[in-house]
């Protein structure tokens, strides 16, 4: 179990679908901790694998301990899958965004309003990440947009393999918009590239204005900050200028859009940003011929 955030070894599941291997391996590792199925004779707790115990250590006669240079990034595997996701999305002209925030920032409401306002511009799909339930995917599907829910179990973030599975399930259309709503968590999702074009961080005025400095990794990883719920600003002591200043301390030049998903204030600017990004991706690939397969 992660001692920082409590996330652990349960399997991630794709709604109605399969379980993910990474989490399987994790569960196996944790299972091994519990049962300690290792086959040493005389396995006293804490034995140190020193010389003289019974298993076959030396591939070469007389080989003592030797050092192997490895030089591999801990995230190499995730990053390779993310790069593959990014290539697949780029080839289809899909503009993909990874939406990250704390729980309760208004991500899903913002998505619902965005989907309604985007109607008619291009196909759009949503990957929803949560520990449990398909509530969010249900809310998205109620708008008519295709959505797939990824339940991470005890996991605290989406990873690239989960998104690969979700994209395969959704079959994202050519020249479409893809929203990936990450698990509500301002820490863990920062490290995991999913293959998105941009991370978009959402901060709401009902939270602390100092969050960008408390959780700098996430704000540093983002290319856009949406400051949400500005309709509530008169009722809370949230200093918007200070919040933006703190975000730009960790991510110099960070673009910020202030909006309210509830009243619609600022939504035009957000839609304009989306349109510009989507157009860049979509015009980079030829239009699909009628009846061409999405994949």
């Amino acid at each position, binding site marked *: 179990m992660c*001692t920082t955030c409590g996330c652990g070894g349960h399997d991630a599941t794709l709604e109605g679908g399969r379980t993910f291997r990474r989490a399987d391996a994790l569960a196996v590792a944790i299972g091994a901790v519990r049962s300690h*199925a290792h086959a040493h004779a005389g396995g006293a707790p804490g034995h140190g694998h020193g010389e003289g115990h019974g298993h076959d250590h030396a*591939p*070469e006669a007389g080989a003592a301990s030797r050092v*192997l240079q*490895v030089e*591999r*990034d801990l995230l190499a595997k995730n990053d390779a899958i993310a790069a593959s996701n990014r290539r697949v999305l780029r080839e289809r002209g899909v503009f993909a965004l990874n939406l990250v925030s704390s729980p309760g920032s208004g991500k899903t409401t913002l998505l619902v309003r965005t989907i309604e306002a985007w109607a008619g511009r291009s196909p759009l799909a949503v990957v929803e990440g949560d520990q449990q339930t398909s509530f969010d995917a249900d809310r998205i599907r109620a708008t008519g947009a295709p959505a797939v829910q990824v339940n991470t179990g005890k996991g605290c*973030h989406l990873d690239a393999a989960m998104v690969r599975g979700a994209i395969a399930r959704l079959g994202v259309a050519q020249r479409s918009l893809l929203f990936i709503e990450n698990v509500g968590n301002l820490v863990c999702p920062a490290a995991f590239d999913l293959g998105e074009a941009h991370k978009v961080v959402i901060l709401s005025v009902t939270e602390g204005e100092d969050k960008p400095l408390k959780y700098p990794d996430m704000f540093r990883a983002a290319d856009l900050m949406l400051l949400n719920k500005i309709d509530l600003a008169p009722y809370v002591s949230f200093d918007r200028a200070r919040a933006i200043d703190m975000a730009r301390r960790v991510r110099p030049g960070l673009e910020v859009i202030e909006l309210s998903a509830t009243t619609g204030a600022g939504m035009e600017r957000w839609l304009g940003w989306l349109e510009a990004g989507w157009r860049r991706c979509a015009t980079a690939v030829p239009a699909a011929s009628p009846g061409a397969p999405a994949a």
Partner: protein
Amino acid sequence: MHEMALAQSMLEIVEAAAREAGATHVTNVRLEIGALSHVATDALRFCFDAVTRGSLAEGATLDIDDVPGEAWCMPCGGNVPLAQVGDPCPRCGSFQLAVVRGDDMRVKDIAVA
């Protein structure tokens, strides 16, 4: 931060490298963890013990080399030390900083038998 997932990735890397070299046992793992990376080293140590049990690296010792943070400061036009993201340039106080070192998490080397 999800140290358990990172520890699991670390174990996959370590076991693959050991098997490739024909080794049957890993006695030490050395990581390089940047001060500005996405990991809490105490949590990673805890997870290391958990994930390595029953693996080729069971009982292996873990060394973590800390890599200090460094950023390029635009006003200074040079590299400066950076203890944590969100800190100002220690020379000029600017926040116009781009991290150039200390945000990696790597398996540096392993000792095998």
